[in-house]
């Protein structure tokens, strides 16, 4: 198996706050990795560091043997964690998908690119929203558009940051089968941050548990031991011990 992503002694800090504490992992081609951990455990930071959006404090990341800044962006599809889209920006669904191909905001696109974009929207059952304004979309529809945008460039690596947030159950099942289908037809390595442990277990091949430090990385069968789960949520468990008392007025 080819090594797609190699992470060596990675430390990422924001000021004094350690988001990623000494990670060493090697991701092999073709795996579907679910990344799990509590809020603030560094999951998004990990994806962003792989993308080159955040510089490591120390350690290094290699993608297909190259350093992050030398990687061809066409190889990587990215679905960011849902955030407040700038709804004042005038843009259509199809334009956002096309940006995945042109890597800018082209004012004209070739017929071929348009066909590609429409085809991927069709596969995601979203063809009817192709010419809607982004501000007219629901949260779930928007997530699917971002997924379409990441897939349209036929990436070798797919980085998904909680892509199913806001997507309804039928769509989510659909979402996962799309990913699984896509993975069967293409050689693709998927890294998906999620809070849905059940669906992670069903659809992924590998699991990464983290809580700023690395707790578990490997095949899914050995992932969910009591110890691993306890360690992943250790500081949360601690916080849960706090008891609240109602003040009498």
């Amino acid at each position, binding site marked *: 198996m080819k090594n797609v992503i190699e992470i060596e002694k990675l430390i990422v800090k924001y000021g004094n706050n350690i988001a990623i504490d000494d990670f060493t992992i090697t991701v092999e081609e073709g795996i579907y990795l679910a990344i799990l951990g509590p809020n603030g455990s560094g999951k998004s930071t990990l994806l962003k560091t792989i993308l080159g959006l955040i510089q490591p404090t120390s350690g290094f990341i290699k993608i297909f043997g190259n350093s992050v800044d030398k990687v061809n*962006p066409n190889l990587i599809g990215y679905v960011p964690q849902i955030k407040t889209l700038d709804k004042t920006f005038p843009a259509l669904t199809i334009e956002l998908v096309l940006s995945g191909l*042109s890597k800018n*905001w082209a004012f004209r696109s070739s017929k071929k690119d348009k066909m590609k974009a429409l085809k991927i929207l069709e596969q995601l059952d979203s063809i009817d929203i192709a010419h809607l304004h982004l501000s007219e979309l629901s949260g779930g529809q928007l997530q699917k558009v971002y997924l379409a945008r990441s897939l349209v460039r036929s990436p070798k690596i797919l980085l998904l940051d909680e892509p199913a947030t806001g997507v309804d159950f039928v769509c989510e099942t659909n979402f996962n089968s799309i990913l699984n289908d896509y993975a069967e037809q293409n050689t693709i390595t998927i890294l998906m941050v999620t809070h849905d442990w059940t669906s992670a277990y069903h659809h992924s091949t590998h699991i990464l548990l983290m809580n700023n430090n690395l707790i578990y990385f490997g095949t899914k069968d050995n992932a969910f031991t009591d110890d691993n789960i306890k360690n992943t949520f250790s500081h949360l468990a601690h916080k849960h011990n706090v008891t609240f008392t109602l003040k009498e007025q």
Partner: protein
Amino acid sequence: MIELLTSNFILYAYLAIILVGFSASYFGVFVVQRKLSFLGNGLAHAAFGGVALGILLDTQPIYVAIPFTILISLLITYFKEKSILSNDTLIGVFFSFAFALGIIFLSLKENYTTDAFSYLFGSILSINNTDIIILALMAGFSLFTFFKFWARWAYSTFDNELAVADRLPVRFDNYVLSLSLSLIIVISVKIIGIVLISSYLVLPAAIARLYSRTFFEMTILSIIIGMVSGLISIVLSVLIDLPTSAVIIVFQSLIFMTSLFIKKSQM
């Protein structure tokens, strides 16, 4: 009346407003979508300081004003990265500073008759050949950035993170954008005034935004609105004998407010 509307100085004014309208309304779409209108306003005031310094030093004001304005815009960017103060505060401080310096420079200049007031509204009806050449170069530069930078600027305006992930040189592009804005503003200030350039950077783009579904539509519409409203206003201002700059702003503002009202009642 027809003679007046086709006399030489009016023809120059038409030409000037087309060139300024094109450049400022084009950059205006980025000013509006990136919420930079206060920066635009601040740079216009800073440019006044530069022009005044040029007058004090007895040179072509533009040669001094360009580096002066760019320096101020770099200072704002530099302190924004180094300090915990907001952009808004820094712009406010630097633009008052530069503007006040400008007033002092002009007052130090002996035998200078033009008052500071003429810089507020410019002097679009007294434009010469050199002015037109400089404005044409400016419009040419704007057109160049349309082909070279529009798609990149638009992408990082929409989502900075996606643009960085796709390896666009976003930091570099942002510097080019602020430098371009400084240039457009400083060149226009001498001719059309501080107030007019600030509103030109916001009003046409804001009107266009109300009628556009894509950013490209918005850009084209903004440019058209900027040029046409300028031309109509010059004719109007001559016919009813009112200050041109003020007529342009009032005219554009009225279009904006009417559009706002129409769009609101459609929702």
